[in-house]
């Protein structure tokens, strides 16, 4: 299969050369950071969603929400390490159905987060520890939880669905 123009460019960058040359230590390091980042995201946003859904009880959502900046930090850590992975082996991702679905889940999660802050956060942040959230807030956080689990699932299983060709 012919290499596409974008892939020729990606492979010509200094970052791509660096990843391929130093992969033996850089790859496991970035994987560890990527797992740490996903943990921060799931370990904050995930619990917040579970609380609004009513699965986890007895905590004010506003208190859990104070941890979310650490989840956002994890998200950006993963964007950064994700770029390292992509520039190292672009074809492993670009032609991988699991990666396509991962991007799709990320996009829906982002739009859904925007919806949450415009349509539900004002009601959720005043809830006391044992108060139930509105149906609307539950639907939105339910979608959030499913999307992030989708991102995690597609990412973790990505290498099982590598394209059969390597450049």
């Amino acid at each position, binding site marked *: 299969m012919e290499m596409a123009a974008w892939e020729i460019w990606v492979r010509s960058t200094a970052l791509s050369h660096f990843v391929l040359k130093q992969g033996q230590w850089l790859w496991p390091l970035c994987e560890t950071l990527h797992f740490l980042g*996903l943990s*921060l995201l799931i*370990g904050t946003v995930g619990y917040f969603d579970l609380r609004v859904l009513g699965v986890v009880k007895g905590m004010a959502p506003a*208190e859990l929400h*104070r*941890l979310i900046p650490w989840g956002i930090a994890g998200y950006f850590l993963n964007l950064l390490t994700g770029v390292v992975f992509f520039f190292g082996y672009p074809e492993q991702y670009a032609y991988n159905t699991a990666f396509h679905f991962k991007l799709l889940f990320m996009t829906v999660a982002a739009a859904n987060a925007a919806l949450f802050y415009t349509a539900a956060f004002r009601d959720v942040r005043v809830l006391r520890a044992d108060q139930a959230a509105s149906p609307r807030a539950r639907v939105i956080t339910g979608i959030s939880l499913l999307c992030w689990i989708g991102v995690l699932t597609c990412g973790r299983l990505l290498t*099982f669905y590598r394209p059969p060709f390597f450049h």
Partner: protein
Amino acid sequence: MDAFFAYLENSALSTWIREADTVFAFQAILVLHTLGMGLLAGGNAAIDLQILRARRPFAPGAFERWFPVLWGSFALSAMSGLLLLIAYPTKALTNPLFYVKLACVALAMWVMQLISRKVLKESARGKYLATVSLLLWIAVIGAGRLLAYTYTRLLVHFSHPGM
């Protein structure tokens, strides 16, 4: 030990996890283990970072109900981890790093108990405990990831071709 590994690997459960032609065997367990890691290590790391960086980390008593939930996440991680261990006992148990990972998990859970008792309930600062906890969870994640790179035997009768 090899007889024990062979016994486990020949069991119906172990064989099914390894060889079943469905994503709901090995792959699903792997995803559950990753989800458990995220909820357990991530939940702890976020609390640690909050203790280390925030001026007023928590409202008094607000997080008392959090720790049973973290134990629930521990149960998810431990049970999915046990199934992965049953699938590949030789791979894990012949790798010294696996025992390092288990020791770090045990220490981290102990520190989590100390934080829940001392730091959150008494509103003490606990930056020392939070630092230790954060480093332990990073070590757990790092060791777990490196297990895929450092094993010398895959199955009792089949070693990794590259090793």
